[in-house]
């Protein structure tokens, strides 16, 4: 099945295709199947994180450079929308203007950082982005009159997207169609389009050069490709997509603060999502984001229950309770991350494809 819409990028063996499309269907049907605020929230975050993870994969998996600034661009998008709507009111123009300004800022920053550090050595890139991102984080918390500091910014959206707006008098398939539902589907559609665009990019001649650079930058340079230029461009493209994902996150949450879009924790979970899904396989972004966001939304509650239950058991109860308490979430995330890089470096998509390749060669 080589759909033109997928830019000719073969997903992989049939079970993987089934898995991928069932996730897509489930996401689309979530508002109807699982009523309530939480499931739709999880579904929207999965969509947004898929774009963010895919944009990061363009850099990490396809170009082979590690950036710690992806959440910075994500944050620029989110803050762009939040600050613009807070300042100019809940109009479409403010939403659009904030997003466009954020895109410009991201492109400029990504280009400058890229040209400076990639010109010297691709290895420097991880260190320099870490420095810039942490300085940016401090800057945001210091400019609290504009950014809301640690508290962040809450804002309202244009009336069309507000939960109070209803479009039909009755219910459709048992669900009242509100502005919130519309907002969800708009975001989901935008995410799908952005994902397909990224798929187009990695399967273009440009994407092939990126893969060549990842495999052997010296040889790519010898073939006449300006590696600095290609790496910087990939960096800019990746930053732009991350910015759009951030803008959508702010629109969806109607809130933005350092913990939702800028913190180092998000950077770590982003790394984890890319690795779980499979580096260098754009489809992995959807699976990685799905696994991670569901785990984050439901596992932490489970951990709390387990921790409370453990605290009541005698003897080892206290130790067990500390180990599974939700405060240890990041610890287990780190352990899981290290283990996946060691033992599961291909991720879900990569593993499926490898199994098929092995089956084919055995035949």
């Amino acid at each position, binding site marked *: 099945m080589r759909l033109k819409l997928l830019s000719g990028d073969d997903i992989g063996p049939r079970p993987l295709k089934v898995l991928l499309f069932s996730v897509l269907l489930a996401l689309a049907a979530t508002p109807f199947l699982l009523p309530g605020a939480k499931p739709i929230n999880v579904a929207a975050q999965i969509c947004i994180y898929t774009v963010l993870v895919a944009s990061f994969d363009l850099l990490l998996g396809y170009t082979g450079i590690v950036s710690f600034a992806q959440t910075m661009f994500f944050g620029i998008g989110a803050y762009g929308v939040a600050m613009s709507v807070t300042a100019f009111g809940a109009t479409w123009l403010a939403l659009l203007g904030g997003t466009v300004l954020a895109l410009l800022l991201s492109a400029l920053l990504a280009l400058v950082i890229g040209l400076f550090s990639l010109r010297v050595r691709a290895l420097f890139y991880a260190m*320099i982005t870490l420095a810039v991102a942490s300085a940016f984080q401090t800057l945001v918390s210091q400019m609290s009159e504009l950014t809301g500091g640690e508290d962040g910014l809450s804002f309202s959206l244009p009336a069309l997207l507000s939960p109070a707006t209803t479009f039909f008098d009755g219910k459709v398939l048992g669900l009242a169609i509100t502005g919130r539902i519309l907002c969800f589907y708009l975001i989901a559609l935008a995410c799908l389009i952005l994902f397909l665009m990224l798929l187009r990019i990695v399967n273009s001649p440009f994407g092939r050069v990126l893969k060549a650079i990842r495999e052997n930058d010296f040889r790519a340079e010898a073939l006449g490709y300006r590696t600095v230029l290609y790496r910087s461009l990939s960096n800019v493209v990746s930053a732009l997509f991350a910015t759009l994902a951030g803008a959508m996150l702010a629109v969806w949450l109607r809130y933005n603060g350092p913990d939702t879009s800028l913190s180092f924790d998000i950077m770590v979970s982003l*790394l984890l999502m890319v690795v779980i899904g499979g580096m260098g396989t754009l489809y992995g972004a959807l699976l990685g984001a799905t696994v991670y966001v569901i785990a984050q939304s439901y596992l932490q509650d489970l951990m709390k229950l387990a921790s409370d239950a453990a605290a009541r058991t005698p003897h080892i109860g206290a130790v067990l309770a500390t180990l599974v308490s939700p405060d240890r979430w990041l610890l287990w995330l780190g352990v899981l*991350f290290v283990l996946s890089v060691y033992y599961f470096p291909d991720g879900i998509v990569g593993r499926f494809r490898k199994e098929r390749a092995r089956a084919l060669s055995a035949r």
Partner: protein
Amino acid sequence: MPTSKVASRADHALAVAPVDWRPIMLVLVIAVIGLPLVHSPSTWVTLTVAGLAMGLIIFIAAAGLTLIFGLMDVLNFGHGVFVSLGAFVGFSVFGALSSLAQGHDLAQNLAVIAIAILAATLAAALLGWVFERVIIRPVYGAHLKQILITTGGLIIGEELIKVIWGPEQHAFQIPPALGGALIIGDAAIEKYRIFAVAIGLLIYALLWLSLNRTKIGLLVRAGVQDREMVASLGYRIDRLFIGVFVAGSALAGAGGVLWGLYQEVITPGLGARLNVLIFIVIIIGGLGSVGGSFVGALLVGLVANYAGFVAPKVALFSNILLMLLILMWRPRGLYPVARR
């Protein structure tokens, strides 16, 4: 006759490489530029001492990292864990010996700091050994995986510190005899900063001596220049590397105590934040060069303090700006290591 003259000059060149003074002059130039920007000479003295103290502490933490990279091409993003661990172990030592740490006797105060540094060094060395075995050993030679794995190691280490000491910040007080400031003319110089400068210079001297005057130091320097050549001469470069890794971690632990006292407050994330400065320092110095990271650390310390006083908002980006300017001047750092 002329040939022997040439030969003797060549011998001389082999024995002592000429020192490149320009980066060292740059430190002085920055200090001189700082004076008119700060206006008041007494404030300038205060800031300069603070900058030197900060720089030397960063150097202690950074020296190991640059050698680890130079020797084995290992880029350790988890280096900050050793700094955090050192700070918290030092904090616990201060708590356990509170009668010594809170008395006003200078000798007792110095003793407690010495014990804290020793304990932090041992703890960080032990953790470094485990870290090298468990985290880094399996990913030799793969940069991408190294960055990912060591970042994971940083998270795990930081979270474990939270498990043991709690997530909140602790006040880490300078012992009374080293607290307060000396007043020289109009300038107030905090005593602890002078102490930190002295300790920093002492550690630099020890490091310089062990790298330049011992057999092992010679092997380490040779390994940084050309790993394969050292290995082909029959030396076990991997064992040498473990030694350097453990020593570098231990230094970071000692730096953690000093940095914690310099900040007077410690959090589990302290090491990760210092790590950003450490990276800037070793990039400025030239990856693999200890002397370079020494000069780089002084530059970073001075610029951070001057900029923090003159324009606090810009100060956040001052170090990054400094790094960019230096990379424009010397793209591979102040003292590039020959092989790279």
